[in-house]
């Protein structure tokens, strides 16, 4: 087929460039500038899909964003995307698309049997039917519904496309480039305001592209082109097409999705597929226009029934005739404009006007052209299954209740116009209190809450002259407030044809004895009868009616159906429409790709990656890395074919016997300075800090106000008023905020400053019985003997010319030190430690060995300080001062916290000394007890003790203090394991802590 419905002259497409594309496997030709919809219509293809519920044949209803039918599955450059509107998708060479919601094909669809079962599928069918038997839901109903439902299939492949986010600020954001948007943008731009003008379609101009008007001495379309061309040259203006502003959020933040590459066969290198703009605008001018609404009649979903404005757009923009025997059914003058366009292209339309005797310039023109007009006539029902073949029409009484004799006339399309619905979505999202405007039977924006104003058709003003005048003035006034410029612009003369009043008629009554489906919501198959049922069954709130019937809940969000639904409810309920109210408009206005929302934050970019200065050394030495918060830390250093278990065991063992070195740069570090620093520490930590001498470190625990342990770490007194605090890797940021909170808000009288120095220091922990010997060689000029640098001592040293801080602190439970140097020297320090340590058999060790060492020593870490434990639970009550007050102390008196059988940390060893206990296992008394088996505690951390060469775990256990020696079971339903265990002390190795002091 060769574009049989394309007209010779006309249209804004590029006929010099032919594009070939495939739809449902068949190849067609179109032109550059087509949409998939216009190209299919040019080839006479009207059947594009099947409806959601009844699988009725569906064609094209609109020509843009409001399209309820033509949703397709798109294939582009090896990728596939569902839920694409054919009316929005621009054609490109090689485009492939398929129909959705049909099987095996759109022409022969098995699901269409639903159409014949439809009397059994009324509103609420699913709610009523799939309730019983209850057990059927998971096995039968749910899988069946899942298979039957849906509009397309999401790709299961990794999305190769790239999506960007952009943040922008402007004085004036303008949504829509129709006459009001152009005028407002132009006036504001001339006043020097920073303007962003967004248009969702590829072409700027909105209604001016299809209307027959004159502005100044140009056609509306040429005027729009001139304005856009000039705006594009202005440095203070950003003009964006293919960009939909879909959400209006708090404080004038709007979000816009820019389709950068969807119109191209493949995305250009380094270009995103879509770009999401977060725009903070001082003022927003909403010029989103209006959408034509349908008149409801029998079988109004038959392919070939479409909005009259869409038919006009296909003709004027794409040069496509949607039919050769059109029937125009209207209640206002817009239908005549479409009829006139048909007539001008040699096609004879028939116009049915529900009004008795309308008079206007447009109607006069139609009459003068000899168009066949039938007044007080309506379409009763469309006839034809996969395409309109004829229409049953009849005269209608003045009260619109009685139909005359039914006649049948031949036609191949029915262009319907039920007047216009302003697009108030953005205004309503902004918090604007919308109001009902009687003259146009629709809601319009009312009282603004944010800095926005709606102009033109979106505000219910359909006169071009008035729109231009207001928009120029508003654009000028708003920008004048911001820039204080006042460049007067002459408002051009407008020639447009005056319209007559539309008819408040929206639904054709059923003729006697006929039970045609009259659809309100075309995508979700909601008919007049469904809403009637919902109301009969007692649903009253429009929000409930919506959810029960699914009216307006499809991907088009009821852009063409909402108002007719409200009309119906108001009629049955005998209320006025504003009393029924409308459902809430929520973002997004149109579907937005998940990829665009996620942006660049995918894969390794989903969070920042922090690396220590020694990272490249770790890499070179076969480190296997693990995510520790945002840090990458070596988990173990692989030797040969070692696995994690073998490697970490070797490293831990080497610490216990020789000496090891671990990168501890990731620990949080906070520099604390000021005369009241000691007082701050004394209030923050549970233990006493006022008497810590200079050159000494102390271990401390800090609580939240609710008594739960927040973090632990050592703090060292560097000099009189200077302390160095360390925190756990994970809590570093929280602890800093915590300190700032108390210093700024609670105790501002304390003269203390805190600042994060995590990134300023590189740290290496040197641990093991030979660590002192190594340290002495690293710092030959320092006295690092047990007397010179005792446990919890601190000194500064010279590491081959680099200033270093040496702390004698230990997490491994061995004799150990932590050496810090400025980050830039981190790698130097590390290499020196390895080099000098060689004679002591030094080995680097990773986080896995680090865990093993601390677990068998009974040192607590994040898995015990899990936001649910108090100092007692961690056997840290010795650090809780009875004398002084501190953050969270009062909470420790809570009855649960002082209960006799309070949970407490214990050690756990499997009776067989073989089976490792999975972390998270529950400890129970009786492994055969019926579920839910009473839980006494849980395994918080597990390791293979290198000291005793058997598994060892830590657990938080109820009444742990009195449970030592008891036999329990560790149960892990997840790993399907039941392990008999014995409870032992959490200090499994060196319980007296002699090694750290040796």
């Amino acid at each position, binding site marked *: 087929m060769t574009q049989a419905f394309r007209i010779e002259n006309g249209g804004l497409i590029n006929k010099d460039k032919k594009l070939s594309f495939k739809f449902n496997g068949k190849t067609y030709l179109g032109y550059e500038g087509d949409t998939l919809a216009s190209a299919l219509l040019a080839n006479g293809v009207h059947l594009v899909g099947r409806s959601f519920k009844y699988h009725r044949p569906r064609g094209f209803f609109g020509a843009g964003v409001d399209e309820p039918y033509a949703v397709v599955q798109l294939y582009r450059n090896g990728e596939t995307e569902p839920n694409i509107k054919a009316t929005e998708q621009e054609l490109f060479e090689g485009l492939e698309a398929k129909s959705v919601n049909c099987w095996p094909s759109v022409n022969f669809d098995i699901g269409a049997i639903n159409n014949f079962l439809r009397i059994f599928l009324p509103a609420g069918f699913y709610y009523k039917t799939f309730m019983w038997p209850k057990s059927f839901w998971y096995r039968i109903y749910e899988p069946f519904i899942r298979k039957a439902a849906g509009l397309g299939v999401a790709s299961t492949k990794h999305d190769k496309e790239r999506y960007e986010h952009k943040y922008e600020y402007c004085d004036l954001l303008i949504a829509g480039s129709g006459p009001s948007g152009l005028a407002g943008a132009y006036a504001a731009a001339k006043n020097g305001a920073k303007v962003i003008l967004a248009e969702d379609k590829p072409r700027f101009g909105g209604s001016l592209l299809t209307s027959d008007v004159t502005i100044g001495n140009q056609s509306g379309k040429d005027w729009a082109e001139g304005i856009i061309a000039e705006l594009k040259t202005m440095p203070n203006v950003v003009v964006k097409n293919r960009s939909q502003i879909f959400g209006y959020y708090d404080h004038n933040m709007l979000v816009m999705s820019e389709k950068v590459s969807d119109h191209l066969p493949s995305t250009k290198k380094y270009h995103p597929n879509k770009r999401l703009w977060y725009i903070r605008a001082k003022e927003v001018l909403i010029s989103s226009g209006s959408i034509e609404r349908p008149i409801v009649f029998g079988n109004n979903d038959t392919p070939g029934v479409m909005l009259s404005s869409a038919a006009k757009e296909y003709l004027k923009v794409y040069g496509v005739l949607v039919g050769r025997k059109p029937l125009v059914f209207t209640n206002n003058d817009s239908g005549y404009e479409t009829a006139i366009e048909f007539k001008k292209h040699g096609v004879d339309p028939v116009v049915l006007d529900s009004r008795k005797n309308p008079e206007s310039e447009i109607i006069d023109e139609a009459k003068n052209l000899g168009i066949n007009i039938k007044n007080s006539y309506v379409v009763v029902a469309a006839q034809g299954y996969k395409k309109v073949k004829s229409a049953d029409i009849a005269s209608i009484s003045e009260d619109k209740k009685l139909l005359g004799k039914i006649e049948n006339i031949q036609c191949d399309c029915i262009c319907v116009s039920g007047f216009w619905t302003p697009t108030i979505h953005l205004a309503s999202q902004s918090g604007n209190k919308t109001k009902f405007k009687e003259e146009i039977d629709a809601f319009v924006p009312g009282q603004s809450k944010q800095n926005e104003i709606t102009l033109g058709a979106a505000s219910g003003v359909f006169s071009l002259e008035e729109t231009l005048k207001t928009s120029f003035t508003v654009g000028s006034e708003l920008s004048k407030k911001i820039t204080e410029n006042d460049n007067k612009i002459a408002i051009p003369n407008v020639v447009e044809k005056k319209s007559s009043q539309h008819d408040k008629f929206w639904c054709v009554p059923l003729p006697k004895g006929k039970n045609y489906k009259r659809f309100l919501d075309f995508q979700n198959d909601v008919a007049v009868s469904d809403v009637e049922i919902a109301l009969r069954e007692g649903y009253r709130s429009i929000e409930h009616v919506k959810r029960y019937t699914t009216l307006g809940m499809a991907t088009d969000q009821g852009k063409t159906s909402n108002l007719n639904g409200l009309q119906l409810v108001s009629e049955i309920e005998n209320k006025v429409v504003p009393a029924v109210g409308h459902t809430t408009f929520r973002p997004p206005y149109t579907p937005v790709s998940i990829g665009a929302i996620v942006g660049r934050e995918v894969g390794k970019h989903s969070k920042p990656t922090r690396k220590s200065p020694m990272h490249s050394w770790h890499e070179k030495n076969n480190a296997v890395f693990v995510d520790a918060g945002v840090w990458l830390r070596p988990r173990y250093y692989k030797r040969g074919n070692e696995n994690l278990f073998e490697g970490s065991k070797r490293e831990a063992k080497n610490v216990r016997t020789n000496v090891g070195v671990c990168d501890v740069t990731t620990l949080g570090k906070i520099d604390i300075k000021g005369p009241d620093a000691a007082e701050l520490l004394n*209030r923050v930590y549970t233990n006493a800090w006022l008497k810590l001498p200079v050159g000494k470190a102390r271990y401390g625990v800090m609580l939240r106000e609710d008594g739960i342990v927040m973090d632990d770490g050592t703090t060292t007194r560097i000099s009189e008023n200077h302390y160095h605090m360390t925190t756990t890797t994970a809590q570093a*940021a929280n602890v800093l905020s915590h300190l700032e909170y108390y210093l700024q*808000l609670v105790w501002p009288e304390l003269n203390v400053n805190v600042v994060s120095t995590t990134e300023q220091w590189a740290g290496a922990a040197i641990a093991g019985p030979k660590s002192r010997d190594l340290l002495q060689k690293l710092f030959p000029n320092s006295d690092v003997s047990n007397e010179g640098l005792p446990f919890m001592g601190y000194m500064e040293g010279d590491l081959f010319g680099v200033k270093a801080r040496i702390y004698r602190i230990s997490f491994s439970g061995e004799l150990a030190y932590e050496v810090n140097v400025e980050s830039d020297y981190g790698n130097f320090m590390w290499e020196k430690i390895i080099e000098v340590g060689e004679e002591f058999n030094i080995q680097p060790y990773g986080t896995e060995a680090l865990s093993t060492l601390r677990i068998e020593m009974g040192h607590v870490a994040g898995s015990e300080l899990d936001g649910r434990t108090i100092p007692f639970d961690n056997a840290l009550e010795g650090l809780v001062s009875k004398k002084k007050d501190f953050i969270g102390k009062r909470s420790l008196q809570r009855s649960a916290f002082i209960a006799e059988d309070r949970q407490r940390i214990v050690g756990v060893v499997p009776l067989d000394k073989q089976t490792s206990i999975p972390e998270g296992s529950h400890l129970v008394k009786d492994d055969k007890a019926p579920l839910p088996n009473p839980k006494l505690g849980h395994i918080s951390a597990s390791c293979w003790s290198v000291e005793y060469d058997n598994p060892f775990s830590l657990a938080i256990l109820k009444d742990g203090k009195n449970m030592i020696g008891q036999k329990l079971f560790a149960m892990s339903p997840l790993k399907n394991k039941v392990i008999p265990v014995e409870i032992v002390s959490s200090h499994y190795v060196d319980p007296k802590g002699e090694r750290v002091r040796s």
Partner: protein
Amino acid sequence: MLYINCPHCGMRSQNEFSYGGDASVKRPELNKEVSDQEWDNFVYNRKSLRGKHLELWQHISGCRQWIKVERDTATHEIFRTFKADEEVA
């Protein structure tokens, strides 16, 4: 996304801030006898107001100052912002 006027830095987007709860809560003084009820009110009990609410925010990705923000919890309107040590009249 809210637009918050940091009294130190000016208008900044919400994603630079972190929320800190009710700003009207006063911590009981240190070393003072506090009843269970008083302490519970300080640690746990919050009014969860609908309407004008004085709350704490920290400008964590900016000046790191804790500030007070007077905000309507229903409409998100921000009326005034204060420095940590400013008295709210």
